[in-house]
């Protein structure tokens, strides 16, 4: 156990959810006779859930500042609908329609941000209002009829990376390139970290632990590269997945390594103390809300792209999926706690569960029930851990 601990770099508790996710994938793969871990299934899994995960990115920040945004589904639906109508009826080029949708998202977020940050109305109420306003808006402007979206948008929601280069690689070369970049980036950061570790902490990690870690993570990336890259000709790592990946990196960096990110956690942890430390609390609220709606617009675009049409019911109850992902990922209802990566694990947990149960032919009714139990179990587990001050099950098994 100590060896594993050293390889993973300390706190095993952080990995409980990851372990659960891996187990879940493994179990489903066995039950479904290997239909879980196939190229096409993982391509679908990612493309079909990218929009929820994108919402969860924004929702994490909103929940960390101690607020909640109930309007995201409606805003996503509204932005998507405006985009489709603008392209179809105003004949805007597709890229202009996309920019318009993003602008709508920003405006909707500024609206919520204004009420929260400037007038001090709680986010729950502000966005409950927004949820109704924008849901009504979608139905109004669409006259309750779905509007087909420009063909180009399909690329965002259901597209694949281009095929190029030599055939002998046996896979989609864009995906291969992505995998190589991923591994290289990981190796470089690990080595850099290793070199610095001695200077900063005074104790160098054992080189074998670093090596094993690189090998482990590298293998995982390599496996997924292979999985995504060797699907049917013309398929690859899906475009919505790539968009999600880029957003994850961006938002991980923002939350962990920028002043704004720190401010978000400070405001969520103790907003009075944050104010006395020079944090502009209302500005932090404003930006977090605005960002959420911007991401809602992105989610709306991805979904419309995948659906090939914007519908009047788009986005219904998406906020609940996003919120569930954040809480399964270990965020606290009272704010101040939660990370982007944990949230993504939480979201993937839901997605894999959904997908696996479907592959097994379990109906939407029972799937819903199971997801509800998983949400409760995950959060209860988290609360239990915190309350008792004990480590996770993993750390209990560690050798003394």
């Amino acid at each position, binding site marked *: 156990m100590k060896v594993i601990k050293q390889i993973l770099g300390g706190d095993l508790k952080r990995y409980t959810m990851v372990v659960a996710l891996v187990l879940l994938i493994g179990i489903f793969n066995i039950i479904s006779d290997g239909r879980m871990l196939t190229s096409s299934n993982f391509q679908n899994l990612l493309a079909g859930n990218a929009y929820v995960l994108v919402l969860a990115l924004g929702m994490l920040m909103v929940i960390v500042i101690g607020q909640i945004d109930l309007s995201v589904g409606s805003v996503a639906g509204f932005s998507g609908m405006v985009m489709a109508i603008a392209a179809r009826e105003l004949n805007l080029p597709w890229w202009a329609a996309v920019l318009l949708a993003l602008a709508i998202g920003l405006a909707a977020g500024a609206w919520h941000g204004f009420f929260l940050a400037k007038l001090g109305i709680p986010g729950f109420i502000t966005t409950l209002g927004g949820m109704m306003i924008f849901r009504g808006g979608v139905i109004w402007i669409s006259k309750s009829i779905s509007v087909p979206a420009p063909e180009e948008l399909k690329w965002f929601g259901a597209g694949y990376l281009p095929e190029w280069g030599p055939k002998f690689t046996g896979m989609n070369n864009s995906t291969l390139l992505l995998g190589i970049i991923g591994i290289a980036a990981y190796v470089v950061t690990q080595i850099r970290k290793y070199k610095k570790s001695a200077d900063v902490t005074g104790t160098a990690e054992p080189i074998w632990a670093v090596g094993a870690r690189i*090998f482990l993570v590298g293998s995982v990336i390599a496996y997924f590269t292979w999985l995504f890259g060797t699907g049917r000709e013309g398929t690859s790592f899906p475009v919505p997945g790539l968009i999600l990946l880029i957003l994850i990196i961006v938002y991980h960096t923002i939350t962990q390594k920028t002043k704004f990110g720190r401010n978000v956690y400070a405001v969520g942890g103790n907003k009075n103390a944050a104010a006395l430390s020079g944090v502009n609390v209302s500005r932090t609220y404003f930006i977090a809300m605005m960002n959420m709606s911007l991401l809602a617009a992105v989610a709306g675009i991805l979904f419309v792209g995948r659906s090939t049409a914007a519908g*009047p019911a788009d986005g219904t109850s998406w906020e609940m999926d996003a919120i569930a992902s954040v809480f399964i990922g270990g965020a606290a209802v009272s704010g101040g706690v939660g990370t982007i990566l944990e949230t993504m694990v939480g979201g993937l947990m839901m997605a894999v569960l959904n997908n696996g149960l479907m592959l097994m032919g379990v109906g939407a009714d029972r799937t*819903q029930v199971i997801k509800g139990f998983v949400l409760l179990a995950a959060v209860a587990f988290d609360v239990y851990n915190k309350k008792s001050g004990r480590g996770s099950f993993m750390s209990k098994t560690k050798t003394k």
Partner: protein
Amino acid sequence: MNRKRITALLGAAVLAMSALAGCGGGREGSAPAPAAKEEAAVEESTEVATEDASDAGEATATAEEASGAGFEEGATIGVSLPWLGTQNWKEAETMFKEQLEAAGYVPIIQAADQKVPQQQQQIESMIENGAKVIVVGPIDGTQLGSVLEQAKDAGIYVIGYDRLLENTSGVDGVVQFGSVKTGELQAQALLDGLKEVKGEGPYNIELFGGGPADPNAPNFFKGAMSVLQPLIDDGTLTVVSGQTDFTQCATVDWDNAKAQARMDSLLSGFYSDKDIHGVLSPNDGIARAIITSCENAGQEIPVVSGLDAENESVEWVWSGRQYSTVAKPTDALVAQTIDIINSLRDGNGMPATDVTADNGVKEVAIYELPPVVVTKANAKEVFANDPSRLELLK
């Protein structure tokens, strides 16, 4: 210090990766799902066919060109339904299950709880499970474009069930009741009922439409208005509220509660000093909501049309509270669908049909079935072969 060792590690990692990558070999063959392998042949032929079809814009050609490539008995058939919240969908689920199993297929039947993303993912999981044919009763006929094309790319036949699949090339045919025809029948039943129950005109009536996201709903309304409009024009019928546009009359999501709320406000707003004689209702749930609303408002029950022959409405028709309903016998629809599946299995392609509809991308073959009006007078006769409904007529 450890530069050499680090470089060595880096090398090892890259090697490991390329080793993993290398073991995959070629692409199609390497796809781990056995189902995908078998389809390789079908896949290519259909892909070509699809392209040809969309280029040339030929109607109904796709399926026929692909004919000849049948599939084995005992193949997996996917059935994706919007939800199980109304009787006809629940019946469809049961019948598909029984009849597909009886015909030797392995059915995967899933309902999506009225959530579009859920239905998209369910269809994907059917593709993943190696279905040969996927029958789709869409929640929103326009929003399944990319997944259906994915099914097409995987060489799977896609049959629309009960509702048109729009905005996609990934559909081979649609089995449904003629929706314009249904509307005409509803309106005609309303007129007959008015004459029979309320005596000579003129009559005060109100109009209700279905859920706008359902492509059938505007067609029902269109069909009904083709019968009613001339009589409204000549004054035999008066729509007291003046609401005669589909968007004004529509009931979002086919939600009974919304219909009842609208009826409540119509009655309080326009009928405080008038009697209401008839209401055009697009389905049974909404019809019952309307009747309840009228009863609550103290109005004499108007003549109300319906659709679906739900159990409760069959009882109401029998007891005279609801004048008529239209049976779209689910068994006929399911039987027609299974006929098509059998034809595909035997390598005969999609059966021929004269009717097509433009779904925005292509002309889709439509297999239309005639609906049947049910009133108290003919109920016994219509349900002669339906013991469970016959039971209600007592």
